[in-house]
């Protein structure tokens, strides 16, 4: 029976075999134009020589990478020492993105859980409500956040009126400002995959665990979280990656002291002060970093699954 079904399946796909190459063409085109070409271009640009008014000179150079990692003094003639400034920006970015991811997870999980446990006909409405703000452009939303969070803004007015604080809180141009901005920008990327995972979760497993003497927190950590882990990982990646490269929130809500990679790269391609090869090199380093994180996560997941079975 099984063998028959399998060979039947093969026969079907064999019938399409001659045409398969052509049928896959759109997929290859999209991958090529949208994914491979831009990355390839960036890789090439990162090895070119910078032109002082923006743009590049088509001449091979390692200068962009050298500039990123080494400090050779103001005129480039001293012996090289490690350039900490950019590494620090990267480190801060990773830190900020990690915090934002955790914050999104912390708030997003109960939110997703809440939505997934509503009666079926209400869930779509809740999901829709979560996504409504995201119909508005990110720039406008971030500027509005700046307006709300500033010292004399509505948030501070409200807190003072309620009496929680007597002096206005400074949120703009602090780490907290960046965190709030990133959190607000990427929360739905956390909530939606989590919601999809929790909705598929079989709640009778929670009942079975309670029946076997598990208190609530054990049900969460031992039963629910392992079951929805793919959703958690997807959500974390979807928040972490854009947070890491984000420049609107750090620029508008964090100010100069909370500069992140995204802003650094953004600056390189703006106006005449830019340095295209350097921007491209920084992007490549960022991309490598992200891929490394993803690979470690994927390998760990695979090992977990293999070890369990």
């Amino acid at each position: 029976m099984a063998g028959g079904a399998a060979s039947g399946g093969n026969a079907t796909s064999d019938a399409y075999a001659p045409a398969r190459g052509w049928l896959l063409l759109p997929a290859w085109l999209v991958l090529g134009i949208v994914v491979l070409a831009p990355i390839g271009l960036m890789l090439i640009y990162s090895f070119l020589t910078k032109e002082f008014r923006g743009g590049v000179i088509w001449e091979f150079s390692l200068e962009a990478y050298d500039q990123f990692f080494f400090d050779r003094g103001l005129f480039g003639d001293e012996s090289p020492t490690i350039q900490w400034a950019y590494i620090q920006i990267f480190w801060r970015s990773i830190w900020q993105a990690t915090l934002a991811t955790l914050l999104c997870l912390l708030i997003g999980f109960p939110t997703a859980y809440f939505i997934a446990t509503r009666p079926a006909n209400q869930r779509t409405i809740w999901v829709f409500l979560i996504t409504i703000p995201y119909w508005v452009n990110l720039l406008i939303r971030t500027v509005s956040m700046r307006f709300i969070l500033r010292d004399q803004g509505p948030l501070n007015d409200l807190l003072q009126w309620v009496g929680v604080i007597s002096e206005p809180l400074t949120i703009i141009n602090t780490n907290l400002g960046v965190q709030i901005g990133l959190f607000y920008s990427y929360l739905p990327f956390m909530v939606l995959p989590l919601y999809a995972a929790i909705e598929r979760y079989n709640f009778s497993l929670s009942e079975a665990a309670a029946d076997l003497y598990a208190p609530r927190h054990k049900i969460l950590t031992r039963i629910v979280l392992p079951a929805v882990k793919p959703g958690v990982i997807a959500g974390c990646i979807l928040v972490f990656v854009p947070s890491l490269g984000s420049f609107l929130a750090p620029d508008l809500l964090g100010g100069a002291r909370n500069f992140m990679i995204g802003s650094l790269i953004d600056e390189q391609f703006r106006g005449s002060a830019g340095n295209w090869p350097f921007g491209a090199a920084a992007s490549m380093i960022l991309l490598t970093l992200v891929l490394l994180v993803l690979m470690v996560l994927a390998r760990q997941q695979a090992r977990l699954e293999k070890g369990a079975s």
Partner: protein
Amino acid sequence: MTDQRPIAIDIRKVIKRFGDFTALKEVSLGIRDNEFFTLLGPSGCGKTTLLRMIAGFEDVTAGAIYLYDQEIARLPPNKRPINTVFQNYALFPTMSVLENVGFGLEMQGKSRAEASRRAGEMLELVQLTQFAHRKPSQLSGGQQQRVALARALAPQPRVLLLDEPLSALDMKLRKSMQIELKHIQRETGITFIFVTHDQEEALTMSDRIAVMSAGEVQQLGTAREIYEHPRNMFVADFIGDTNLLEVAVDRIEAGRATCHLGGGHELTCDAVDGVGIGARVHLSVRPERLFLSAEPEEAESLRARVVENIFIGTDITTILDLDEGPRFQVRASNSDRGNRRVFEPGQSAFVNMERGSARLLVD
């Protein structure tokens, strides 16, 4: 019929409403210590609801539930020493079979080593030792069912609840699991509350049965009591096959009621309280309590025409029509065929009824 064993689960006037729908209408039941107790009833009669209230997944609208001397109706499920074998098993998919079985023990505060040792013993009991390190999804339905049983038994609950645990298994496996379950219940001495809608399963396994319908207990008793003395129409009809005849009571003399079957036929049976002369009630008689003959052999004997013989392995069922009267089923064991004549369709025969085998039912 007094039983000295203490009451393990005492359900006192429990009512359950979902919105304005009443799923249970004042149910009272006492389930004894070490008893194999079955809740039997058609789909939707409230069996699962009652079980879920005992387990603590559903709160009671009114009434009380006692576990021995303790009121438990308001305890959360993880505080009740009661475990459940779920209808869909609800095994934890991310854990191995051994971890599944050890989970309850771990949650009771046993060390991981101790939990996994005890879990190993439980797997031995259900003969699944070689599957200990598999995931539940890698087991067959019957094996999953046994894991669910081992998992629920491992923490040594005072009462085990089983919600149609065998309904997903094929007939053969089901029969062998019935025997195994009964055996495990004897061995462990744990009180079992078993839910099924299969009357045959209930009759074979249970010490006592509560027959439920529409959120009410219709009758409570041993398998024999329920089969032979159904209290009302519903029970008589639901348990086993029966000839249910609509009759009118003509006379009552010396504790015997003479009933009119239509078409001029009459039958006499024991009178019951609440059925007077002129009452139109139902009379129930089991097909295996009737036998056929060429000439009348009992005081109660009716002439009928054979419609059909149905062969069902161990038995043969003959369907007969009385002249202008109701239809009868008569069942004879296949081994009796040597002694008793088999009547062919179209032939006429006498349907004989022993005294005491027909019962009048109060609806």
